[in-house]
């Protein structure tokens, strides 16, 4: 085994920016993430992931279990470490060595809050944030000639960060409003400035108008568009024609969709932005390197020794000639040949910290050299 030191040009640290697609389809109060159906399990008839429908399971541990769940626990000691479901005062009152347990049924999904009255704590909490982004568009303003978010009917859609990463990608947000399967309205942040502009269907009521704004970094969509997208009235928060303020109705907002002859459904699509740091390492095997192996199979014969009362001499062993020949009765000319099967990474103290395996062993002779590209996410 040979050790080589990585040089400055052999190590690179990069950040990969990716844009994963997400879609939420809401119909009759059911949420479908990325068009995945809700799969019922054998033991858990609701959802085999053991979380509510349309939710992502954080750990995906308790797959299809009705009981006997995997759960974490710890024993109280002096380190003040506990789970979030144990309050500080409850923790303090517990005696030492008490078993404190939690649950792995952690899940997340989008939620909706509709406000028509002046009591709107979640909107008020976003006041500074909304005003901050007025440099992108005046439609962000909490109160302006475009509307007063303190009093107008407003629809707040909250997207947990597990569904987008660092931020929502500008220009990727599309909201589609369907009535009985027909598209009656589509919003798109086509100007990359957070304004959700109605872009379809062509010639529809409100086409070209701004129906809301997107908080890209915070994961919120606020919708204030209150023009009727068609003339049919059905049960939303109130019985009314379809409007953007009712978008995603019954999506984790405490309402249950009422069955009517007309049914609305909603599709929200966007891309997230994720950053993954990677280290790329170039491991080089030069012409004169790695042409010898300590593997026992590198030598032919079993070896042996000659010994007596005054001497001990090991019998020399020859390197096995593995050069290919078309002739079975003639040994080909010997060439030192090794096969590289794995590359190990060591720290400065020669502690093994990682192993890379190649898919198939790479044949190495004195006539060729290789550079192996190793990449690891950090």
């Amino acid at each position, binding site marked *: 085994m040979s050790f080589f030191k990585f040089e400055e040009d052999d190590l690179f640290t990069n950040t990969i920016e990716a844009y994963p697609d997400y879609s939420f389809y809401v119909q009759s109060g059911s949420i479908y993430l990325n068009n995945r159906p809700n799969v019922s399990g054998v033991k858990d008839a609701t959802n085999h992931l053991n979380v509510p429908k349309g939710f992502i399971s954080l750990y*995906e541990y308790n797959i299809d279990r009705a009981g006997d769940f*995997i759960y974490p626990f710890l024993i109280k*000691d002096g380190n*003040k*470490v506990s789970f979030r479901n144990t309050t500080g005062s409850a923790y303090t009152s517990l005696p030492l060595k008490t078993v404190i347990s939690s649950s792995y049924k952690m899940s997340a999904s989008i939620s909706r809050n509709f406000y028509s009255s002046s009591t709107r704590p979640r909107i008020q909490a976003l006041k500074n944030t909304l005003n901050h982004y007025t440099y992108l568009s005046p439609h962000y303003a909490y109160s302006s000639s475009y509307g007063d978010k303190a009093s107008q009917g407003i629809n707040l859609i909250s997207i947990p960060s597990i569904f987008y990463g660092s931020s929502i990608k500008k220009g990727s947000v599309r909201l589609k409003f369907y009535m009985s399967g027909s598209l009656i309205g589509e919003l798109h942040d086509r100007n990359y400035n957070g304004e959700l502009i109605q872009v379809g269907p062509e010639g529809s009521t409100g086409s070209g108008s701004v129906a809301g704004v997107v908080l890209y970094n915070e994961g919120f969509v606020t919708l204030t568009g209150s023009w009727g997208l068609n003339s049919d009235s059905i049960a939303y928060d109130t019985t009314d024609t379809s409007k953007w303020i009712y978008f995603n109705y019954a999506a984790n907002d405490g309402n249950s969709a009422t069955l009517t002859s007309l049914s609305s459904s909603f599709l929200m699509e966007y891309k997230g932005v994720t950053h993954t740091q990677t280290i790329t390492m170039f491991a080089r095997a030069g012409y004169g390197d790695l042409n010898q192996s300590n593997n026992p199979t590198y030598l032919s014969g079993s070896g042996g020794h000659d010994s007596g009362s005054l001497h001990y001499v090991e019998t020399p062993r020859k390197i096995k000639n593995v050069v290919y020949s078309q002739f079975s009765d003639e040994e080909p000319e010997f060439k030192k040949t090794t096969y590289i099967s794995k590359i190990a990474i060591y720290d400065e103290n020669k502690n093994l910290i990682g192993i890379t395996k190649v898919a198939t062993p790479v044949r190495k002779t004195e006539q060729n050299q290789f550079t192996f590209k190793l990449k690891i996410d950090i």
Partner: protein
Amino acid sequence: MADSFYKSLDIGKDVVSTRTLLHEAIPLTGTIVSGTYGTNNIKNYAHGMFQSVYDYPYLSSSANHIFDITVGVGSNSSLTVANQLSKKKNIYNQMAQVLVGYDATGSVLRFDEDGDILAGGDKLDDIIFLNFSRLLVKDEIKKGTFSLKLGVSASYANAMLQRINIQDTSGSDGYLVNSPVGDYGILYATNDTGTPLNGAAAKACGLLYYQAGVCALTASVFGSLLSSSAQMNSGGETINAILTGSQISSSADALRHRMFNLQFNNTVELNSTVYFCRVNHNEFNYSTNPTYLSQSKIRVKTQASDQPVSYITTVGLYNDNNELYATAKLSEPLRKSSDTEFTIRVRLDY
């Protein structure tokens, strides 16, 4: 950050490292490994050297791998293996190399029933291995928590009528350390339902490697340890018969058919550093935040004699070059004035 104020931490007094052991309870009912999903959660491979068990049909992306089952037969075994001999020997030798190690001459050591290798004693040459997934084992299996209940009735059809419970009763204080892969404990079988064991006393029946997450179970738990040997398949074959005459996958099927319950706890070591950030009465009472001023006057003071007040929302941790490398946020702003002092405890887990 506009409102930074640097204060050095005293490494000796303000910084302390702690270690917390976090555990998980892992229950695996027998119906998961045989029954609920038929064989949809059981994966056999073309190489035939082991069988993988999942907690859900393995073609689903939701499925988690939970353990592998294989069998090994040592060179000193009394069994005459006719089916997959070399594979069973190779598995035994490989597991022995990794888990037991070598003697002074470089020969692979055999699994020892009581772990006392130098003293000789009974060796385990016909072994059923359960290799648990790292997802379940995490850092290690918690000592003294392993319990495997096996149905050992003689009848194959009514396998669960009589059961034994296999536990690492030597557990938390009686474990052994003479393995290359860490600590291990001796597994003992006791009667759980009925009295199927040959004799009343607890019987040593295998070894449990805590950090490696491997259970090495002697095949005699279905044979000589019992009053009457268990039928391991519908053909009525004994454990020795399927070890010698059947493939490894058949032995794995036979074991799964008789697994009633499996339960253990695992352990994860959480390392933390706690920084005690001390805020004295005369510190952090002012802010450079723009909102602290209104018309060039301190907003929180209405007359010159008023005490200054600030609200602490964030603690930034900086390195020696004053480069920010972590921030800790308070759940709600903390009112700070000249008549109050705080110690803010910042914990960094890694």
